[in-house]
């Protein structure tokens, strides 16, 4: 097996370009791959190239096999699985590295280029940015250029390979566009594949534990984008409801682990005022929660239900960007009747923990007289006393609520929501915590609202007889500006100041908004071109409700048409060069003379023969011959050409 391992330098012309194409294909994977894999690929590339330069044999089979086994076990150890995009691309990279070590022929290089194509594809499965399209086009051009270099026997200049490859990709572009538009999209996958992209998707956690060392997400990653159909709610009304937490063990709040599917929640809802209509484009969270403004009553997302706690959830987790239309009421009453069993859910708390809070709550409740007054007095306490809103609060001990309320007095929304809910429960008022997002920034460039991870928020709901669940946001009592303005605006000022750009921060911010607007369009039209968008586009084209047969037929017709055009373009490219005008005129003269020049007969000799054997006048024959020779072999002169034409016409 290890026979004939020698190299003869014959791959020197094409190998660097194959390596370049591979490198380009691996580039977007580098941040996600373990360093040792990137290192191994780089090392193998350098190793193989130096082997070729020094015309040494490639490493023996045994060495390669043991390297392969080691790398495979390494991948298995790193990822503990081999399925999914992360381990998949790691394996591809390893395959490329090992294939390099046994590459001795052109067909091995083709295999490397096939791997490069799969690497590009797997990077697209991982992330689809605005720049992914130019990246993939450039990748194809590079890979195909390396392909041409590999296929060519002699050292073809790179410029020519790149030119040919980009020309062919350019010809292929209209074909690809037609196929992309008309290829029927299907809604459900053939087989369920976990899209384990290896990226941390930042979303809301299912539980909160104010007091553990935790910093609030400062990530400005987009959580979702919202387009309002008519009215945009005021900042203080922008509560995007996610999940509800009702269990408290003295430290951690948690909710139901799997969303309970029931459609009965709407029955317990009374609404007033005008609904808000909007469309949400939700980034993947890999969770079940579907975000909506306050209490939604309509949404066009399938297998999505409103749970008993009025949280919207989809049966299968959201592992791809989805868009849905929804309508919500911001003026509502929910659950005016609370079943005693449920009521107990919202009153439970461990009596043994946080004793100081319990005591304070009970004394305040006694002083207040009514539940409403009690709520007001707690909020007033947050507002009037020394409580601070901070994103980096100190860690709290074993009785976190006590520590927070009486000692540290520093925290963010989770701390205030948790403390408030505990105080309510201690005083016998049913309370729960809602996690979601609050706020959102209007992007005037694209006329939509961006809600970021940094807008994540926790607030409380208390149940009052007659009113049902009422939203109380204790953070608003402490830091009203957090609710009114949101944090996004302030964030950019800070960033700009840190960069020493106090003045142009607006400009910077606008640039960021413009970029986000472009991304939103990209997401909506290119990445989100699924069955619904395709149907919409087809009906815009005039094909009402087309089935997949019709679309495939259109696709085939279009591809055939475009292919014919390409064939025509190629035909033009390969046409013979246009003939010399003088030669065409001279041919006309020859035809008029009635004679045929013999092979090798010069025009002058021919003229002598014409003079002798034809009826044409000797003067004009010689004059025409002289003019022709001048035009053909002298410096370009349009006047002479005209003269030749008229002389021949006059014959």
């Amino acid at each position, binding site marked *: 097996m290890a026979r004939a391992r020698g190299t003869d330098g014959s791959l020197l012309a094409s190998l660097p370009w194959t390596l370049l194409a591979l490198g380009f294909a691996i580039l977007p994977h580098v941040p996600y791959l373990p360093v040792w894999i990137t290192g191994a690929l780089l090392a193998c590339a350098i190793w193989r190239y130096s082997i070729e330069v020094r015309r040494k044999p490639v490493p023996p089979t045994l060495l390669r096999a043991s390297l392969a086994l080691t790398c495979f076990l390494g991948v298995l150890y790193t990822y503990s699985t081999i399925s999914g995009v992360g381990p998949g691309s790691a394996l591809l990279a390893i395959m490329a590295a090992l294939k390099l070590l046994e590459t001795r*022929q*052109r*067909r091995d290089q*083709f295999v490397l280029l*096939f791997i490069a*194509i*799969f690497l*590009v*594809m797997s990077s*697209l*499965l991982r992330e*689809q940015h605005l720049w*992914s*399209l130019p990246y*993939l*086009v450039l990748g*194809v051009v590079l890979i*195909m250029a390396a*392909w*041409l270099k590999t*296929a*060519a*026997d002699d050292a073809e200049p790179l410029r020519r390979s790149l030119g*040919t490859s980009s020309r*062919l*990709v350019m*010809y*292929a*572009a*209209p*074909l*690809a*566009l037609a*196929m*992309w538009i008309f*290829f029927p*999209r*299907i809604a459900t*996958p*053939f*087989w369920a*594949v976990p*899209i384990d992209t290896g990226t941390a998707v930042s979303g809301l956690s299912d539980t909160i534990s104010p007091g553990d060392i935790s910093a609030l997400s400062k990530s400005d990653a987009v959580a979702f984008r919202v387009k309002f159909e008519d009215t945009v709610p005021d900042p203080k009304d922008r509560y995007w409801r996610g999940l509800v937490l009702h269990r408290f063990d003295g430290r951690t709040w948690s909710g139901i682990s799997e969303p309970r599917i029931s459609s009965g929640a709407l029955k317990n809802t009374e609404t007033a005022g005008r609904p808000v209509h909007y469309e949400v484009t939700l980034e993947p969270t890999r969770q079940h929660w579907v975000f909506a403004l306050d209490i939604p009553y309509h949404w066009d997302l399938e297998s999505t239900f409103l749970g008993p706690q009025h949280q919207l959830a989809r049966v299968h987790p959201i592992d*791809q960007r989805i868009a849905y239309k929804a309508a919500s009421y911001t003026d509502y009453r929910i659950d005016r009747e609370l079943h005693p069993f449920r009521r107990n859910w919202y009153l439970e708390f461990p009596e043994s923990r946080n004793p100081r809070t319990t005591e304070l709550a009970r004394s305040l409740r006694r002083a207040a007289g009514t539940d409403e007054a009690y709520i007001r007095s707690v909020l007033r306490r947050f507002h009037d006393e020394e409580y601070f809103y901070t994103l980096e609060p100190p860690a709290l001990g074993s009785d976190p609520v006590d520590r927070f309320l009486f000692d540290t007095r520093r925290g963010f929304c989770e701390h205030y929501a948790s403390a408030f809910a505990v105080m309510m429960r201690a005083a016998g008022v049913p309370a729960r915590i809602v996690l979601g997002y609050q706020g959102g920034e209007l992007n005037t460039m694209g006329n939509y609202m961006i809600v970021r991870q940094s807008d994540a928020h926790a607030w409380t709901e208390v149940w009052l007889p007659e009113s049902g669940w009422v939203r109380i946001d204790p953070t608003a009592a402490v830091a009203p500006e957090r609710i009114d303005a949101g944090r996004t605006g302030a964030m950019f000022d800070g960033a700009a100041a840190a960069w020493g750009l106090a003045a142009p921060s607006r400009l910077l911010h606008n640039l960021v908004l413009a970029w986000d607007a472009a991304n939103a369009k990209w997401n909506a039209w*290119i*990445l*989100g*071109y*699924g069955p619904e968008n395709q149907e919409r586009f087809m009906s815009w084209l005039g094909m009402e409700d087309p089935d997949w047969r019709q679309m495939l037929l259109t696709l085939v017709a279009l*591809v055939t048409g475009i*292919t014919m055009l*390409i*064939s025509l373009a*190629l*035909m033009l*490219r*390969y*046409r*013979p*060069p246009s003939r010399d005008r003088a030669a065409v005129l001279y041919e006309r003269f020859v035809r008029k003379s009635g004679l045929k020049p013999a092979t090798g007969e010069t025009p002058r000799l021919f003229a002598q023969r014409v003079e002798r054997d034809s009826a044409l006048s000797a003067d004009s024959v010689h004059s025409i011959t002289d003019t022709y020779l001048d035009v053909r072999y002298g410096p370009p002169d349009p006047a002479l050409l005209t003269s030749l034409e008229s002389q021949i016409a006059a014959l």
Partner: protein
Amino acid sequence: MSSTRWPSPSRLLPGINAAASRRLRLWARRRQGKDGPVTRLQPRRIYILPTGVGLVFAMMTFAMLLGSMNYNNNLSFVLTFILIGVGFVAMHQCQRNLVGLEVSFAGTEPVFAGQSAQFRIAVANRSKNPRHRIRLYLDDVQSDIKDLEPGESRIFVLPVRTERRGRITLERFGIRTLFPFELFRSWAWLHMYPQGIVYPHPADHAPPPPATQTALGHRQHDARGEEDFAGLRKFHTGDSPRNVAWKAYARNDQLLSKQFAGADMSSQWFDFDTVVADDLEQRLSILTRWIIDADRTREDYGLRVPGQSFPPAHGEAHRRQCLEALALFGLEDADG
């Protein structure tokens, strides 16, 4: 060089493939008819099939399409469709790379039986675009791969093995290209029937030629040695350049050959009838050997075969005449 060991239909089913390709060839021959001396390749006679690499490429794009559909990933749809598009374009480009080429026969050099006849075929690119990686072939014989710039014409050499003397005819040959990506192979068959001469195989162990006869009996006017200068005469093709009177040429622009009248003129006659051998071919082989040896020593020699006689002389033209007579002896009508 171009053959890659990928699973191609021809490798999976060699027997069926050989039979099919022969039928296809015959069909093409009937369809195309005999080609003229200069043949321009029209699109309708250019055939195209995917190569092994092309099939793997097709399978890969199909897998990518399934993957894109499964993940509903629009960018990987874009990638897949670009690659499919590139495949389509490559197919047309591959065929266009041959269309319009002008193929003509550019002669062969005679060879001895057992050597390869070098069929020289000129291919001209009369278009505005370069043609890439063109190759001529006949069954498993292949020419070099060449590029043709616009307006360029290049000679491709097909070495064809010969076994017997006589005229050798190239009944067909093909021209093909794998450009651009080796995904497709497009080719055309040509039936121009170019011919070449195959001399008899020179006998390895030939008896010595008959003794030299002095010039007494067979004195011929042009059977001359190189002893005494006898005058000048007009140059004939085949005269040795050594005998050209270069000084005279410089003076009056006329090529003249020096004539010698030698006392020791030796002229040999190689006579078919006097050769002792088992059969005809052996005889011809021995005669061939004698001619080659005589030519090498620059002696004059004459050849007599039944029906033809070449008086003693030397030079390239004479050698060719004699060997051709031997090559065609008994195979064609009188003059060949």
